[in-house]
């Protein structure tokens, strides 16, 4: 059996994961690298979509589909809407100038990744998932999520619903010219 650098056996699942994760990572880079805001937003949409697939591989199908509904379906459409609304006013409003500070930021980011990765990853690369028991198979379904959300997590759930209500009222206040 082939072995990758960290002593991990190369399986078809790992290759599939590598493809999806690589595409997601490329899209994440694209969000930062593209100068055109619409293209950044598109990269982010693709990234969120691929993340939903990764959630499916983690047996969290309910959250994967919620990811698509909430992020790709609602939040990113809002982003696109606002970018296009700003584009309507002045075409070059959102284009940035070159800046030497950028390279320092990129360097710092790389340093952070290397520092964090060298501390955490060597341990975690050995951890493999527990085999799929009947309890685990029900893990990401709507029943399990609903039951937990409305029993153990009732208080945070209500708090979040109040937060969303405040968000709605706040955004209306901000967006409306006259009230």
């Amino acid at each position, binding site marked *: 059996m082939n072995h990758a650098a*960290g002593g991990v056996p190369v399986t078809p699942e790992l290759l599939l994961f590598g493809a999806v994760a690589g595409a997601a990572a490329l899209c994440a880079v694209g969000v930062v690298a593209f100068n055109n805001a619409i293209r950044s937003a598109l990269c982010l949409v693709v990234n969120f979509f691929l993340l939903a697939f990764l*959630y499916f591989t983690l047996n969290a199908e309910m959250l994967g589909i919620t990811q698509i509904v909430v992020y790709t379906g609602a939040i990113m459409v809002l*982003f696109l809407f606002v970018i296009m609304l*700003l584009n309507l006013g002045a075409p070059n409003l959102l284009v940035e100038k070159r800046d030497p500070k950028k390279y320092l930021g990129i360097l710092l980011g790389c340093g952070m990744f290397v520092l964090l990765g060298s501390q955490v990853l060597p341990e*975690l690369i050995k951890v493999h*998932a527990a085999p799929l028991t009947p309890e685990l198979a029900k893990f990401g379904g709507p029943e399990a999520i609903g039951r*937990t959300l409305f029993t153990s997590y009732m208080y945070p759930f209500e708090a979040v619903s109040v937060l969303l209500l405040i968000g709605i009222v706040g955004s209306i206040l901000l967006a409306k010219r006259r009230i």
Partner: protein
Amino acid sequence: MNGVPLGAYIGLGMFMFTTGVVGVVVRRNPIVIFMCIELMLNSVNLTFLAFARYQMVTKVADSTALQNSLMAGQMMVIFVMAVAAAEVAVGLGIIMAIYRLRDNVDIDELNLLRG
């Protein structure tokens, strides 16, 4: 998935988080900065779900305790999503209000508070 170690998911999460941090530091377009924050939130979500799936469930004997320990990561993800949705609604509202006020949304030009 069976053949994938936890480190792979955490590595991807970490990479996305770093990219988001770099984006927030480097970019000056507030909308892109917002998108980078979303990227960071999502990388955290991925990490939560990966840890929730990969923990050693066999050690927990009680059924309800097992259920709780399995669901904790997913619950966090749900709340992060809800908070992100509220944040985006308000944040984009603020950007639109600034644009209406000043016809410009460059972060470096918004220095009225001398920050």
